[in-house]
């Protein structure tokens, strides 16, 4: 979907919020939306990383963002939980609504946004000073949860959801870094699930993993979508085809095309999308 109605910065925020959400595909009934991003532009210093990206993300579905390196797909993903703000001198324009609430309203605390919108990174990063168990519940602990019974329940629940419980249930006291790469990534997913987010963002979650570990994560993504909205950035087009319901193709900071994955991969509207998907560039 390419947003044809240009929103001018002068328009008030409420005006933009009140505008009815546009469904990603006109032909199908509009699915329930988790995110509505409108005219999002982000600058790192003087450099514009993404330009006027408008994208609606459906609930309980997997949306994949594909595109060549440097196209802004990671920046857009990070704009969904305000992680891009960690880079000094960033500037953002446009709005991102999460279930209708403006993520960038002045009264919104980024920490609260990130509690609702979790994130998995390219390189698995369990905390090296903590055991497997401590890693899973660290988000709850540092957010003030002290009840040990509650923590233990959440620990098992999160590890089960991340399909890791059976592999580590006897080793919860071992360091998180003692696990294999794929297990570490699932540990990071469990850590993210433990704070019960609504959305999980994944920034190339499998690019450092071998094919078997990748297959496990992909299966996990498929299971998690029943409960969570998932947005993933991937370099791997086959993977996008396998796991996602919707695909967005970005190029040079712009959203080129967005639609159901089957349509993007079999019958793309834009020439650039087709060129990228068929491997003519990228």
């Amino acid at each position, binding site marked *: 979907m390419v947003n044809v109605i240009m929103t001018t910065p002068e328009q008030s925020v409420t005006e933009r919020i009140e505008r009815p959400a546009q469904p990603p595909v006109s032909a199908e009934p509009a699915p329930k939306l988790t995110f509505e991003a409108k005219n999002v532009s982000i600058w790192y210093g003087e450099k514009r990383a993404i330009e006027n990206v408008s994208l609606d993300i459906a609930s309980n579905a997997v949306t994949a963002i594909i595109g060549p390196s440097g196209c802004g797909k990671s920046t857009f993903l990070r704009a969904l*939980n305000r*992680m891009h703000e*960690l880079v*000094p001198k960033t500037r953002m324009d446009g709005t991102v609504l999460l279930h209708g609430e403006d993520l960038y309203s002045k009264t919104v605390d980024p*920490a*609260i*946004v*990130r*509690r*609702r919108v*979790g*994130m998995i*990174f390219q*390189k698995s*990063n369990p*905390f*090296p*000073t903590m055991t497997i168990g401590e890693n899973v519940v*660290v*988000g709850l602990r*540092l*957010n003030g949860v002290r009840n040990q019974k509650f923590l233990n329940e959440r620990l098992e629940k999160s590890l089960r959801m991340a399909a890791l419980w059976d592999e580590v249930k006897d080793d919860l006291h071992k*360091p998180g*870094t003692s696990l294999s790469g794929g297990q570490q990534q699932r540990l*990071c997913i469990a*850590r*993210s699930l433990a*704070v019960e987010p609504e959305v999980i963002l994944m920034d190339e979650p499998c690019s450092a993993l071998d094919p078997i570990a990748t297959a496990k994560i992909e299966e996990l993504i498929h299971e998690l979508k029943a409960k969570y909205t998932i947005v993933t950035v991937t370099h791997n087009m086959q993977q996008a085809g396998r796991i996602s319901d919707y695909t967005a193709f970005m190029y040079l900071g712009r959203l080129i095309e967005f639609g159901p994955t089957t349509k993007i991969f079999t019958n793309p509207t834009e020439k650039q999308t087709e060129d990228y998907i068929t491997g003519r560039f990228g």
Partner: protein
Amino acid sequence: MHLERAHNHNWRKIKSALASGIAFVSAVLVITPLGLVFFHLVINGASSVNWDFFTKLPAPVGAVGGGMVNAIVGSLQLLALAGVIGIPIGVLGGVYLAEYGSARLNSVLRFLADVLNGVPSITWGVVVYGLVVLRFKGFSAYAGGLALGLIMIPLILRTTEEVVLLVPNGYREAALALGVSRWKTIVHIVMKTASRGIITGILLALARIGGETAPLLFTAFGNRFWNHSLSEPIAALPLQIFTYAISPYDDWHRQAWAGALVLVTGIFCVNVLVRILTRGRGAPVV
């Protein structure tokens, strides 16, 4: 052509051997003074290091025996005072440099800390003399501890900054993405990950100030007896060694050697402790 290359090859081999030979000799020359110092201290001081040395107050001139217990305890008290001032300010300042601030401000702060690290230690003594000793009209343990603490601050600041910067950004991002606040991320994730390195920096700073004499000359002043109040002069091992070494008495000279041996051994032990800490398995940082 072929022969010429062989000739070149030999000449290169000689140059290579020469370079590594010079490097080896230099390395030996670096270690030699340490060996000489330790050897000399053991020869001259070992005979005077005995139970009395660690348990008795200094004996009057001419009297046999006596020890330096007041100086040993005094040094530990001064290190504790210095630590109270130097550790929190140094560690928090280092964390600020690594985690907060603007690039421009930080490069200024970093430069100033490096300048402070190069300030001769007697200067700190003079500064504290002017600020504390003159104002409160008396030498004191507080003044000595302050002088040593001020020396510690830039040392700890720089080592803390370096080890905190070594913590991979992925850990900060992971914690922040869980909705953990910035300061909790820094305290519970970043500083915890860097804790070994931070502790190492603190120990090295303590070892460095443990042997300082100049800043104590007109702050802590020294004391031949027990110190009963921190607002009064206090003995310190390096000061006691200094006083004894410039005295005309042979048995004081022997005590000074013994004191120096104890001091060097103590600092050596701290450095060994640092080695053990930094070698530990799974040490993520430093």
